[in-house]
């Protein structure tokens, strides 16, 4: 009686036997299924791993369908695009494991910071070396948003020591951040803003003005702050870029060196830390456990945040405006996010893969993509042909992209962000390390552990 579960199985031997049989059936069924799957592969097929959300996936499916029809008309043979949705979380480790096992897809949609790492790992194909690549890299680059295509163009060192430029992917989606401002909170402080000589009906245009706005909009009794921000490297780029930070440059010997310890970067980080420590207008939204910028903005706690077009729909219940990132000494600028499509070395039909990449990023398809999903097209020719009268906020992002700067081309960017620059920014923001020291330490580590991979 004491161990009734065991006695149940002893007494009910039938159930125990049934359980074992069910498990065995499942296991054998599993093996049988696999053999059926592997024997059903199509010879003329491209497998594409994509990380789209359901709405994007629906549109992508239709585009892929149209491409298949066009391809068979043009080439007189069929091509099947095997679209496979994959979680974005853990995608980079997933790809690394797949590379080790030679089990990569033909095409994959990856973050725009990753092509360099995969290119140096010799996992993806330089598209410009394909016989069907019938243009030059520079000519092709003219067709796309500059900051979006830039992440695909990678310089590698040839055996003779010279640098060679190659194209490793085509932009699939591009975005950047701009300044979101809560019109309602601006209206509530209209009198104070006006008496300080500021216009409550518009967002600040430069960082100096931004501080003045933020100081008035910070009402600590109401737990309301003028600004809330993330502090990872990617989210800090608008600050670095508006202060003219270069990140990486070639020295006199042709070697890549990090310039994060130079004056513009120091000024940018100093300004970021001042917003929190000196002016007290930033809510500390970057700290663990605090209300993050998006949630703070959504709940009327932060009057201004930096965010991207993916939040336009989420914020649709509040009265907000979108403006260019306030200008710094180098004018307005932003970061660049988004995704690229790359072709893996395991691809048996790279010509068809390149054709699909070019088709998807063509002007007409990008207009269709943008109008169906309200996203920024990657093809620059599509910019003027999209009706933005109903989407004025998207127009601001498209304007911002013209001055946005591409993500620095440093290998293992994901590791760099998580292990080096992220912690350094955190320490500086908390006031636990001086801005100068935090950036000097980061620069040293980047040169030693990351850029050395390029300079080999």
């Amino acid at each position, binding site marked *: 009686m004491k*161990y009734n*579960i*065991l006695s149940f199985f002893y007494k009910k031997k039938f159930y125990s036997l049934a359980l074992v049989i069910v*498990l065995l059936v*499942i*296991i054998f069924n*599993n*093996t049988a*299924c*696999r053999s059926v*799957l592997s024997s059903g592969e199509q010879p003329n097929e491209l497998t594409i*791993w994509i*990380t*789209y*959300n*359901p*709405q994007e*996936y*629906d549109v992508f499916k239709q585009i892929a369908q149209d491409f298949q029809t066009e391809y068979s008309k043009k080439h007189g043979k069929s091509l099947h695009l*095997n679209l*496979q*949705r*994959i*979680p*974005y*979380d*853990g995608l980079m*480790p*997933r790809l690394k*494991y*797949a590379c*080790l*096992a030679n*089990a990569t897809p033909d095409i994959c949609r990856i*973050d725009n910071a990753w092509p360099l790492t995969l290119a140096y790992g010799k996992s993806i194909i330089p598209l410009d070396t394909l016989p069907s690549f019938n243009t030059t890299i520079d000519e092709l680059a003219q067709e796309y948003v500059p900051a979006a295509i830039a992440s695909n163009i990678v310089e590698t060192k040839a055996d003779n020591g010279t640098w060679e430029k190659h194209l490793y992917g085509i932009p699939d989606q591009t*975005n950047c951040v701009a300044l979101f401002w809560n*019109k309602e909170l601006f*209206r509530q402080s209209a009198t104070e803003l006006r008496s300080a000589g500021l216009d409550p009906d518009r967002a600040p245009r430069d960082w100096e003005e931004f501080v003045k706005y933020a100081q008035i909009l910070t009402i600590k009794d109401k737990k309301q702050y003028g600004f809330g921000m993330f502090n990872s490297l990617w989210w800090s780029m608008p600050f670095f870029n508006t202060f003219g930070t270069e990140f990486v440059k070639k020295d006199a010997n042709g070697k890549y060196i990090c310039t994060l310890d130079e004056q513009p970067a120091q000024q940018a980080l100093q300004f970021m830390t001042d917003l929190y420590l000196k002016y007290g207008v930033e809510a500390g939204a970057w700290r663990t456990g605090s209300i993050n910028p*998006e*949630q703070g903005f*959504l*709940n009327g706690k932060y009057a201004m945040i930096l965010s*991207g077009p*993916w*939040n336009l*729909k*989420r914020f*649709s*219940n*509040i*009265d907000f405006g979108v403006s260019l990132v306030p200008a710094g000494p180098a004018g307005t600028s932003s970061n660049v*996010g988004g*995704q690229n499509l790359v072709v893996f070395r395991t691809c048996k039909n790279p010509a068809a893969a390149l054709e699909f990449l070019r088709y998807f990023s063509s002007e007409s398809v990008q207009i269709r993509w943008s109008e*169906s999903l309200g996203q920024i097209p990657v093809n620059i020719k599509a910019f003027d042909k999209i009706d933005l*009268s109903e989407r*004025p906020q998207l127009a601001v992002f498209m304007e911002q992209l013209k001055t946005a700067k591409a993500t620095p081309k440093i290998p293992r960017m994901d590791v760099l962000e998580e292990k080096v620059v992220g912690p350094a920014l955190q320490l500086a923001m908390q006031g636990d390390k001086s801005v100068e020291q935090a950036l000097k330490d980061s620069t040293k580590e980047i040169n030693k552990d990351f850029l050395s991979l390029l300079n080999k």
Partner: protein
Amino acid sequence: MERYSLKNFFIYVALSVGCLIALLPLLWMILVACKQQGQALKLEILPEPIAITAPYQTIAGKSNQVTLQYYSASAQTVQVRISFNPTQLFEMNNDHGSFWINFYDVAAGEYDYEFIADGNAVINPDTNSSKAKILVKEALSSNTKLKNASYIQGNTLVLRFLGSGQLPIKALLADGQEINLTEKDSAGYFTAQVTDLKTGEFSYRFSYARSFWDGISEIYTYQNFVEILFNRDFPFLKFFANSLIVATLAGLLTVILCTMGGYVFAKKNFVGKKVLWSIFLGTMLVPGLIFMLPQFAIVTKIGWINSYWGMVVPHVANIFGLYLLRQYIETIPDSLFEAAKIDGASEWQLFTKVVVPLSIPIMLTLFLLVFVGQWSNFLWQYITNTPDSAYRTLPVGLSLFKGQYDIRWEQMMAGACFSIIPITILFVIAQRFFVQGMTSGAVKE
């Protein structure tokens, strides 16, 4: 005695508060799972008596706006065919489960339209026809159930808001003006007019009184659960079944292997036992992630990608489990084994009649630990399955709701609500054994 009671009372209160705090994430999960799409991050649990709508943008100077709306919880795509000259087919936008579309600058006149949901024309049971008519420049009538059916005529904004009957209803204009909507038109809309609008973009919102239950229905919905269970692009039941099979298989095989191994290491002597045991224990010092790469290489080589075996077998070699069972079995008196041997028990009978019955609590404990570990394992199950694999498990499936920029918290949490059910049931059934197993050996009597 009284002093102790008071002390106990405060201890119970403190423990209850602690429990409630520990349950907060669970509560958050359930609340988010029940929230309307896009509301997850809003810090709104109970509805405010006065609600404010999202801002509506309109363009003054543009006249004859037609808004059509179609309600459907199940349709994936909805189009509308409307007899503009010529007849045109338009995709409708989805917003919170209803589909809507706006047309501007429509010339005055009467138009036919029909909705097409997932490729099929929608028949109106009242008229037995898919066709309906709309008269432009008339107040938009009952075929639209939009809360806001305002429109612009020339430089006049005709505000129309479908309230529940409770007043006040106010329009909040972008320039700070507040206008009371008190009159009701024939279609049941509260209405007011703003004249002499300046040409250009113009935004306004409505504030309206609502009952508590109306407020609740505006914040919460059960649709996320429906969407999780019956979404054709998200085979939840398959993910769930796969997780159940993987976790159960891993738990059973681990317990069987560890019990056998634990028995051998506890009660048998063989050459190199101590060395082998030390090596086994030494592997516990190496982080599990280090083993992942060689394990993945082996699984790939064997051809176990996209299979239950690939997800289960590498985790069966569980040194912690072996250690747990060995320590437990060591406490079984040798005299029991000797007595069984005198009675003629074989080695197999010693194992099944002595070791297993006495080790049930610790075996169940190990089963639970392995089950929970494998039930929530993401990375291994992610890398050993291709994206089209039929063997993907629940954690891998649920992560599809998390994009780079956009997380669908509502659906993800609805899935998580289902995912805690097996673990909860297991714990409820086996908690007695679990506590017994975890505390075994703690007290020597």
